[in-house]
């Protein structure tokens, strides 16, 4: 294996490196300005000032008001507060929630939990590209529908949903609209007003911020209750001593997004498209998963017929390339990903999926290196595969 310094990281949908500027922003808050934001003294004031300044940065990055931004411990908690918090609070309005079959487990598992306590969930199907149909959504709406939760962009295949239309349709039916924007944030411009969003989940570690910090945007006036109780922090929605270094880091990461997004999108798109084109051109029996254009600028997801994805990830790892079969979570299972199966990808292709996810740090040189490695690597595995049939 190549040394650490030589490794190429293409698993940015799993997590990202923290930006140097973000680390520098965080550092003073560990051992100089280390106060508790609830304290009265000057250490407390420093913490509060940093907290509110970060809240403004997060708000700016999604077009919200600062008071609509609540810090959480990550994307999973944001999704849980949005779903559990809204459904439990609005029991008298209805018990129905609509989501899609390709959501992240942080939404799907929460929905399954809600089902065990009496809520009803509709899981909308997706087409072969991974897109939810507005007609299906319209048809699923009932007068008991309280919440629609559809992710902005999928973590495995990168497909982008028409969230603006989904939001509008939800509102027409008097339902609230939540979107899991953990993967899209920092890759697609987001404006909660323009996109008709009532609740939005984002996570620090997917955007070169620290792990263990996230945010939930909640439109002012949205009825919601906490799932974690305590000292009443974050205006009662999420108690616990605020993670100031994490919040400062997340704020800085959002600031970098606000200033750099356009440039980042262009450079990632270029690398993405060259990766996709070159792989499809150079390796036979290979298919792009997800939508060709309604696609995250950093997502490449390709299935290699008759090759098992994990074996390919291992081969890549041995040459110092970090990639994934799909989501980091579903890597744990042996069956094909629920996302690919929902998109009706046949097993033999679904099990051979490989995801490269880019960041603004990746370079054309890295892409060229990978493009050299992939074809012989796939060929080697196919040569020993019991499913491979040369034509």
């Amino acid at each position, binding site marked *: 294996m190549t040394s650490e310094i030589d490794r190429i990281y293409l698993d940015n949908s799993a997590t990202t490196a923290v930006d140097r500027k973000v680390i520098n922003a965080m550092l003073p808050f560990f051992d100089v300005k280390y106060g508790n934001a609830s304290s009265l003294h000057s250490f407390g004031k420093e913490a509060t000032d940093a907290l509110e300044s970060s809240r403004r940065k997060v708000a700016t990055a999604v077009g919200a008001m600062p008071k609509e931004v609540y810090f959480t411990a990550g994307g999973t908690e944001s999704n849980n507060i949005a779903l559990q918090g809204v459904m439990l609070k609005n029991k008298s309005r209805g018990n129905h929630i609509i989501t899609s079959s390709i959501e992240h487990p942080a939404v799907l598992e929460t929905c399954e939990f809600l089902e065990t306590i009496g809520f009803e969930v509709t899981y909308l199907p997706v087409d072969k590209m991974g897109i939810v149909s507005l007609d299906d959504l319209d048809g699923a709406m009932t007068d008991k529908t309280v919440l629609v939760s559809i992710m902005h962009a999928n973590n495995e295949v990168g497909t982008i949903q028409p969230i603006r239309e989904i939001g509008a349709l939800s509102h027409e039916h008097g339902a609230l609209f939540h979107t899991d924007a953990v993967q899209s944030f920092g890759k697609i411009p987001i404006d909660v007003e323009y996109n008709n969003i009532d609740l939005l989940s984002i996570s620090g570690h997917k955007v070169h911020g620290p792990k263990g910090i996230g945010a939930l945007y909640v439109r002012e006036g949205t009825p919601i209750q906490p799932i974690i109780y305590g000292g009443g922090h974050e205006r009662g929605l999420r108690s616990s001593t605020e993670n100031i270094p994490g919040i400062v880091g997340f704020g800085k990461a959002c600031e970098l997004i606000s200033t750099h997004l356009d440039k980042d999108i262009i450079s990632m798109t270029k690398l993405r498209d060259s990766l996709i084109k070159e792989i499809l051109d150079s390796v036979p029996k290979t298919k792009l998963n997800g939508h060709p254009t309604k696609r995250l600028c950093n997502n490449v997801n390709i299935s290699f017929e008759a*090759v098992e994805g*994990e074996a390919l990830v*291992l081969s890549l*790892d*041995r040459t110092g390339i970090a990639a994934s079969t799909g989501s980091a979570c579903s890597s*744990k299972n042996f*069956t094909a990903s629920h996302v690919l199966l929902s998109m009706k990808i046949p097993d033999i292709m679904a*099990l051979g999926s490989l995801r490269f996810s880019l960041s603004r740090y990746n370079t054309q040189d890295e892409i060229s290196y990978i493009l050299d490695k992939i074809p012989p690597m796939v060929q080697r595995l196919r040569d020993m595969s*019991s*499913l491979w049939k040369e034509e």
Partner: protein
Amino acid sequence: MGFEFNEKVIDHFENPRNVGELEDADIVETVGSPVCGDMLTLYIKLKDGKVNDVKFKTFGCGAAIATSSLFTELIKGKTIEEALKVTSDVVVDVIGGLPEKKVHCSLLAPDAFKQAIEKYKEKQ
């Protein structure tokens, strides 16, 4: 997570022994399926009650490929009875251990061999 494979597993993954097909195999046996995530085909040539030659093709993860490779190495030249004693436990042992979640991969090749021999004996 992270791959928790020892050097021997990696060696068998990167340089698998006895990969391929046997044109003149006495038995060809396939276990697993694409739906399960791994599928192995074993090609066996018997001679004088011994495993004269054996080759494999595996669709599967690194552990499936490595244990398939090691299994063929272990049974080649052995009598059928000796070869049947090469269970998945033996494979895991000889390869120096597998991560818990990957132990089931080592069942593939011994299962295929056992099944192959049973069918072969029935046919005789």
